[in-house]
């Protein structure tokens, strides 16, 4: 059964504002896909249709864009998508152990979603937190750095209780010099 999707009046106003940032309406595709995904949790073909119709663009074009970029969910995902960075800095700091621990804990494999629709696990490419490896990102939003099994256990518990992680500022470390 297909869900019906629509934007609210406020969202349509927001879309107008987005369009005004660019000389051509087509540039609004990515930000409006983001807006749609934040609202609906994914951009499946029905949502893509809504975005295309709202912007007056061919549906094929919006589909082409949505399928090019990995952060857009083309199907329903878990409420919390755990994107574990697997690129080299995280790799050599234990990313695979983190993925295995998550798999055991949640009873699913990488690439799958739990039956209750709460969690998905994905191994993704470099997230730009190389000095804080291993790490993961929760549903395209907050980074959780310096992962350990204990930290993962705590995260899963918190998420089950509806408590999302806070932004972790990773401070710049200044070299201690003899004269400072």
């Amino acid at each position, binding site marked *: 059964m297909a869900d019906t999707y629509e934007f609210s009046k406020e969202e349509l106003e927001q879309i107008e504002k987005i369009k005004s*940032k*660019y*000389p*051509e309406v*087509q*540039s*609004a*595709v*990515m*930000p409006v*896909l*983001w807006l749609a995904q934040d609202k609906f949790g994914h951009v499946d073909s029905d949502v893509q249709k809504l975005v295309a119709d709202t912007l007056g663009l061919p549906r094929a*074009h919006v589909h*082409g*864009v949505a399928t*090019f*970029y*990995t*952060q*857009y969910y083309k199907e329903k995902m878990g409420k919390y998508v755990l994107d574990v960075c*697997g*690129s*080299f*800095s995280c*790799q*050599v*700091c234990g990313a695979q152990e983190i993925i295995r621990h998550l798999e055991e804990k949640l009873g699913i494999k990488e690439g799958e979603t739990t039956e209750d629709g709460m969690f998905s696990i994905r191994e*993704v*490419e*470099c*997230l*730009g*937190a*190389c*000095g*804080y*490896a291993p790490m993961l*990102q929760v549903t*395209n*939003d*907050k*980074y959780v750095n310096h992962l350990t099994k204990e930290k993962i256990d705590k995260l899963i518990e918190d998420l089950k209780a509806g408590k999302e992680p806070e*932004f972790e*500022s*990773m401070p*710049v*470390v*200044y*070299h201690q*010099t*003899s*004269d400072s």
Partner: protein
Amino acid sequence: MAQDWKSFKPVLIPNIPDLAKIDVYEKNGGYSAIKKILTDDKWDSQAVISEVKEANIRGRGGAGFNAGMKWSFMPEPDGGPRYLAANGDESEPGTFKDRKIFEFNPHLFIEGCLIAAYAMKIDAVYVYIRGEYREFINMMDKAIEDAYKKGYLGKNILKSDFSVDMYTHSGAGAYICGEETSLMESLEGKRGYPRVKPPFPAQKGLWGRPTTINNIETLANVPHVINNGASWYKSIGPENHPGPVLYGISGHVNKPGVYEFPAGMKITDLIHEVCGGVRGNKGIKAIIPGGASTPPIRGDVIDGVTMDADGLREVGTLMGTAGMLVLDEDTDIVDVITRISHFFDHESCGQCTPCRDGTGWLYKLMSKINNGEGEMRDLDLLIDVCNKMEGRTICALADAACWPVRNAVERFREDFEAKCKKTVYAVA
């Protein structure tokens, strides 16, 4: 020169609390460079470009091209719009430096954009930031909003006749969008397929109009050049690759992180003095100095090697983004290179056949060898695949995928051979 790095005081991400707040930035001399330019007749757009060119800020996104020179490629204004795209895609594995500017010194970057916009007569600046950096995009949006409120952005900036707008644009997970023409396609709301050059962005960029693309860190260097002069800038680090650099160091070191020091730092100083040495006091197997696409070098060649274009060329590698990965002696280098090949296979946009197919071949071959299923002849096949990819595609992603493989097979041959089956082909 590099010897006095210990007394160097950071200028891109200085140790000033709350510098990300516009008032604090102003109190610490912020926005003085743009004020100087807008009030002093000496600073016409040509003078700004000359000064920046003279400073030789080498692009911090990886290519290392003189930023002022790039600016000088912009054609004369013809009345139509002109654009600056600031590249904060930052997706090269090992690279996590621009986020420090977004979080800790966004106004320095905005001021750099203002100076660039003034010099090149830009109408709008688009700050392209990778979609995963949602928090950092929010920080930039806030900084831009504050700059508008204070009259540093928008119409008639500081009551002059100079006007420019600035917007952020979120990516959505595509490494290729850090390639400048792909970034423009993405900003135009398309799949991020790199464009054929020529025409170059300065001739035909965003929406067919003259456009310059600079890295975030590159632009953050600009206000200091205007405030202190090109000769001051060139007094930092090596003559041929001057200025401060944000070194992002990860892997097997005790204190990984982003550190600001002059260009030309010795790799060994970065590892042992800055990062507190290798974890567990182990030896060093390899260094990947500037992101996944820069060729790995052996730990036994790094003594005395400096992090700048010339120093790294001598040992057959590149500066890239200065996002350096340190691998200890127990690292399985074949496993690391396999993961790099996985990355490029995943991130190839699929537009050019040699890259679309070649990155898959490299990954499959690397996996085969990594799993102990490879044969010695697969090592030759890897090189053969590289030969058929390099220089045969629209953008440099195919080359970037080949360099780590090609160089690793050559430089760590014994590790590859150790994983290969010693098949003997009997002649019947």
